Every structure is written in C-alpha cells, then in structure tokens.
C-alpha cells in the first residue's frame, strides 16, 4: 500500500469533526438527562440521578407520553408493512413498460420533494370540509406513506436496476409460474434490501412530524407530543425523553442491521448463493 498523503489526514480530521458535529449534541443531552433534581437545561451537572426519567413515568407530570408512544409504535409498524409491500409491488411494476408509468414516477418524485406542510394542510382540508373524522390511523397513516413510499421505491428501483434477470429466466425455463418465480427466486434475492426498506418505513414514520400535524386528529403521536412539550417544559425531563426515544431508535436500527447480518451469515453457512443475484 502506498503511503497516506497529507490530504488524507486533513480530510480524516474534517470527517472526525463532522461526526462530532453529528453526534455531539445527542451525547450532550444524554449526559444532561442524568441531572440531579436541582439541575437545569445546561451544564454544570448538579449531582447525578435518574430523577428526570422517573418523572417520565409519572403520568400527570408530562402528559400522555406513553399513550403517544404506543400510537407512534403502532403507526410505525403499519407504515412499515405497507411501505414494504407497496414498494415491492411498485418496484416490480416499474420493470415493465406500461402506459402511465412516467406519470407515477414523477408523482413519486413530487411526493418526495413537496413541502410536508402542504400534505398536512391538503389532507386536513379535505376532511374538515367533508366532515369526516380525522384519525391518526387513517389520515396520519396515509399522509406518512407519501413520505416513506418514495424512499422505499427509490431503493427498489436501485435494487432492480442491478438485478440479474438470468435467475428469473432460469426459473421460468424450468416451468415456474410468474408467482413462483417471484416467491422463490426474486423475493429471497432481494430480502436483505427489503429489511432496509422496512427500516426506512418504520423510522421515518416514527419520527415524522410535519405530515402528521394536521392529520392525527385528537390523539398525538410521540413527535407531536414532544413538540408540544418544547413550548412549556423547561426542565431536563425533555432531555430524558429525548434520550429514551433516541435510544429506542438506535435499538431499532441495531435490530434491523442484526437481522441483515444474520441473514447473510446463514446464507453463506448453508452455501446458498441467494442474495448473490445482484450483478
């Protein structure tokens, strides 16, 4: 290997500083959430305690945190499953030529770049004018899909752009039906990438704010609840909540990564070449 140039060390330093910039604030509030009962929103630490975490478990102190957490979790799972299924179907559809495909493609891009508040406003308006009930599990769900689906689909497009079609042709030549080809050949090959789509679906929904604002009805999701807290809570309890939700996000991300790694391990152990069908 050739020697590292000076540029490498300069760039490595910038990269390290970038990581500090990314993670520094999160680590700071994680530390500050262990403030003593007298502590404030910044350093110095006045003792170390779990006082603020205990506060979170006292219902009256902070509002309906656990109810909103349960709603966000449910909604996240609903959005995740839907995103995976619809993205795979969409990805398969876009491998074919069909009239209208470019309209749908541009709608997906629009969905990605449209200011979130417009979705919130538009969906909210339709339902307030038609007098239908607004609920997080219907409208909030649909509104969030406009944010998660584009990511899922972009991943699927990228996956299918690299998909080696000879595997499917081999299956077809051996008499597999269209459904069998998808079920036993295509899906196993793209499975690890589907975990990625699921990760996007869940986390983007779990943290979504702007699109849920006018579409969640009378019950808040967790980000809405946290946002409400920022205006009237001036104690480290908000840091404790932030630390918990971030820890939960990390847990989810770790879980998904672990699934992918296990999948790949098991495959190589069994000598299967599934997952290798991407050229």
């Amino acid at each position, binding site marked *: *290997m050739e020697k590292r*140039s000076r*540029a490498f060390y300069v*760039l490595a330093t910038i*990269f390290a500083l*970038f*990581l500090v910039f*990314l993670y*520094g*604030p*999160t680590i*700071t*509030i994680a530390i500050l959430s262990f403030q003593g009962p007298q502590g404030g*929103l*910044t*350093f110095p630490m006045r003792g170390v305690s779990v006082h603020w975490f205990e506060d979170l478990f006292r219902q009256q102190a902070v509002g309906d945190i656990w109810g909103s957490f349960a709603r966000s979790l449910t909604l996240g799972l609903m959005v995740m499953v839907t995103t995976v*299924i*619809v993205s795979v*179907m*969409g990805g398969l*559809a*876009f491998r*074919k*030529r*069909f009239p209208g495909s470019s309209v*749908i493609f541009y*709608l997906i891009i629009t969905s990605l*770049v449209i*200011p979130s508040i*417009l*979705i919130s*406003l*538009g*969906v909210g308006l*339709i339902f307030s004018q038609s007098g239908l009930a607004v609920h997080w599990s219907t409208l909030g769900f649909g509104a969030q899909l*406009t944010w998660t689906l584009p990511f899922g689909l972009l991943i699927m*497009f990228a*996956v299918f*752009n690299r*998909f080696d*079609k000879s595997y499917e*042709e081999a299956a*077809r030549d051996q008499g597999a039906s269209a459904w069998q080809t998808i079920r036993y050949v295509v899906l196993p090959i793209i499975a*690890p*990438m589907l975990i990625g789509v699921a*990760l996007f679906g869940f986390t983007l929904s779990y*943290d979504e*704010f*702007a699109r849920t604002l006018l579409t969640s009805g009378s019950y808040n999701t967790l*980000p809405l609840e*946290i*946002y409400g807290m920022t205006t009237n809570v001036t104690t480290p309890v*908000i*840091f404790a909540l932030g630390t918990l939700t*971030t820890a939960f*996000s*990390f847990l989810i991300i770790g879980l998904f*990564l672990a699934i992918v790694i296990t999948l790949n391990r098991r495959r190589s152990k069994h000598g299967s070449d599934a997952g290798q069908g*991407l*050229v």
Partner: protein
Amino acid sequence: MTDQTHLFIPVEKNDKKLSRGTRRQKGLPDAVSGWLLSLPLALVLLFFLVLPIAMIVVVSFWGATEFSIYPAFLFDNYEFLLTSPVTYQVFLNTVKYALITWAITLVLGFTVAYFLAFHVRSLTWQIVLFLLCTIPFWTSNIIRMISWIPFLGRNGIANSTLISMGVIDEPLEWLLFSDFSVILAFVHLYTLFMVVPIFNTMMRIDKSLIEAAYDNGASGFQTLTNVIIPLTKPGIMIGSIFVVTLVMGDFITVRFMSGSQKANVGRLISNDIALLQYPSAAATAVILLVTVILVIAILLRFVDIRKEL
C-alpha cells in the same frame, strides 16, 4: 453485504434493452400487470398527494370570515399576498436560508463523501463510516434540534467555553434563537442528504479514469476539478434538490431554532393554519409549491434521476 450498502457498490448495469420484458412467454401482458402492481401505489398517491394539492388550489380561491371559510372564486387571497411587503420579505428570507444552507451542506457533504469514496480504502470501513453518517437520519429531528439548546444557550457550553478561553467577555446573544442557530440546525439535519447521493455517484466513478489523470501528470487538485467534480455532478444535483426543497418547505426548524423570532414561508402557512385562515394558507402554499417546482425544474435540467438510481 448488508442492506442498502448494495446500492452504493459500483456495479455494471444490466443491459436494459435485452431484459425489458422482451422474452415473456406466458402470463398477463406487461401493461395489465404493470397497472395491477402499481395500483396500491397509485391509489396512495392519488388520495394523499394529488387530491390534497387539488384541494389546496381550490381552497386558495375561497373566502374566509373570522370563524369559517366559504366556497367562492375570489382572487383576494392572492391579491393580499402579492401586494403585502411581508410576503416578499418572508420569501426572501426563505431563499436566503435555502442558499446559505445549500452552499454549506454542498461543501461539507462533498468533502465527507470524497473522503469516504477515495481515501478510505477498505470496503468494510467505507460501509461502517457511511452508516455512522446515516444513523442520525433515522432518529427524531425534533430531538436533534432540542439537543442544541445546552450548546448554544446564554449559559451554554459554547459561551462558557469561549469565556473561559478568554475569547469573549460576555455571552454571545446571537448563538441561539437567531439566523445562525436556524442555519446550524439545517446543516446538522440535512448534510446527510448531500453525502448519500454524492457518495453514491463517486463510488461509480471508474477508478482507472483517476489513474489515467495521474498518469498524464495531473495534480491531485487538477484531478478533483477536471475529473471527479464533473463526474459527480448528478449526485450533487440530487443532493441539491433534497436540501433546497427541504429547507424551503420547512417550518418547524425555523420556528424552534429561532424561538419564533424569524419567519419563512412555511411558518407563514402554519400561522395561518393556527388562525384557521385556510384560504390564505392555501394561497401561500400554492405560491410556495410553484416556487419549489420551478427550482426543481431548473435543477432537473442537469440530471436524469431515473438513470442515476
């Protein structure tokens, strides 16, 4: 390897002409199965994207009293908006945020992606470091904004460090609740949207092109400006589209990080919503949408998204 990392590994594409459904022997025709497969997608987009936009456009012509809104075909909302100096000020401020954030995220994102793509030599390390950059994207934006408070506040870490170092005598007031904190938060939240597409394009650059540049006597800097930057343009454009549209459509970051002291178009809309002035909010939304679409149309002239995936 793992999930999305596949997307960023340089690979040769399939020959599309050959594989595009030319050798079907049985089953439904492509048009029918394509429609059926994209039906759920089309329905979601219809009900939660197309109809809401149509509704906004319709309501933007409606009238409003203090308590209710009523169907009409008035240009009042637009007239009021387009003649009010506040509108222009707020749009100018929005464009200012977008431009400054775009410039910073571009330089920072390009540098980070360049380091990852060309200076990190093992694929495993590339994946690990890349994941480290992307993980914050999957956590809550609001929490990430809140976490700046202990840093930037009057008695925050930044001020107390600067005072103890003797750089300043009194706490800086402009650190929190200012344009500075708003842009800092934007950069913090959105640099990732530059890093990912730029890194993705860089990983596809044929390394022999760079070797060829060196062999022909180009310096590192010349290679960067004459080979790498031109080849990275599609990634830069996609990242720019993300960052510019996210910043232009934002209302929560500006509200939170400026302590409600600064305004952008998103806040204008959300204030109208809070006052139940939906027609006025809708008119502002239409103008915002038109602006965003214009910006994207200009950026899209430089890149074919479908080819870049």
